[in-house]
């Protein structure tokens, strides 16, 4: 059933978020530390196990796939609810510092990601996610 897939997603999301809150409070900060990242890793590992052992059906996977494909619309809604006015009227210091940090960080990406490796597995791995969004 479709809801099973959505429920697995929701379960991973909530467990990850709780873990993130716990890590945050252990570090003494009132913030979720990596909850979403933990949830992502949980989902990858858990779904992989289910698929490999054949315990998950196609409709259940469709429940995951639906939200996977809703990602771009959600991001567009997110863009439309940003405080863009605040960004553009934040004064010269905010604008210059914001632009500078992005340009410098862009320049650092190739330095840190190193030599491009042949990624045969990456290009073949879009079996479950959509290819084009």
């Amino acid at each position, binding site marked *: 059933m479709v809801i099973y897939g959505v429920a697995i*997603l929701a379960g991973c999301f909530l467990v*990850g978020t709780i873990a993130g809150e716990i890590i945050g409070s252990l*570090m003494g*900060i009132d*913030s*979720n*530390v990596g909850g*979403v*990242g933990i*949830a*992502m*890793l949980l989902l*990858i590992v858990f779904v*992989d196990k289910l698929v490999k052992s054949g315990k998950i059906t196609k409709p259940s996977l469709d429940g*995951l796939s639906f939200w*996977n494909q809703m*990602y771009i619309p*959600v*991001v*567009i*809604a*997110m*863009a*439309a*609810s*940003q*405080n*863009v*006015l*605040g*960004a*553009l009227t*934040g004064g010269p*210091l*905010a604008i210059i*510092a*914001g*632009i*500078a*940090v*992005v340009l*410098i*960080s*862009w*320049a*650092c*990406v190739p330095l*840190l*990601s*190193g030599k*491009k490796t042949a*990624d045969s*597995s*990456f290009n073949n*791995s*879009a079996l479950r*996610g*959509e*290819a084009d*969004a």
Partner: protein
Amino acid sequence: MLDMIKGVFVDNGFVTAFLVVGLTMWLAYFISNKLTKGRIHGSAIAIVIGLVLAYIGGVVTDGSKGISDVSFLAGIGFLGGSMLRDFAIVATSFGANFDEIKKAGIRGVASLFIGVILSFVVGAIFAVMFGYNDAVSITTIGAGTATYIVGPVTGAALGASSEVIAISIAAGLVKSVLVMVGTPFVAKLIGLNNPVSAMVYGGLMGTTSGVAGGLAATDAKLVPYGAVTATFYTGLGCLLSPTILYLFTNMIF
């Protein structure tokens, strides 16, 4: 009659959001295919339209939540709010390759620390150049260039003035918007076409909204790799900025 229609939109805000976002995407892909012959990705155009709408919403309502401050479009704020955003980000990991994440693990973690510290230093330098000379203000503005959440969290912890906190939020917003819009244009230049560089990208940039939007507009397959590191960034920034980074700043000024 018009009031009645508006009432239906207001009462069913979430459903209205599906329609509005769907129409936006249709328009964006139409522009992408017809006017740019597919050279600029449809989702990149859709995100720019979204940001323009957000700007219009800000001007019209004087609010801080973009177009979702317009009453009958409030559902867009829910659809694009942190709960569904994070839920959809987690869903992107469906189809991601765990081996790739493990392979890039150390680089990803390194890029997180470098990203937070680099952003902080750049922000702090500009704060000094603009005449701030107390450690609390410099730290808060430095933290704001990490993300627009780290800035106010740090500022509140250190007791910065509200003017400085506002600057730190604005700096983080500028970063987020620029990453969203700019990523597809620099992707080729910086080798952003594989899981390793996407994880490094998430760690260096850190703004979850920026990375999530920017990578979506570049290649949706890269999103989970960028998001998996970016979602640790704000937490790490909130941890380092008011503590170690503040101590260092305090030693210098």
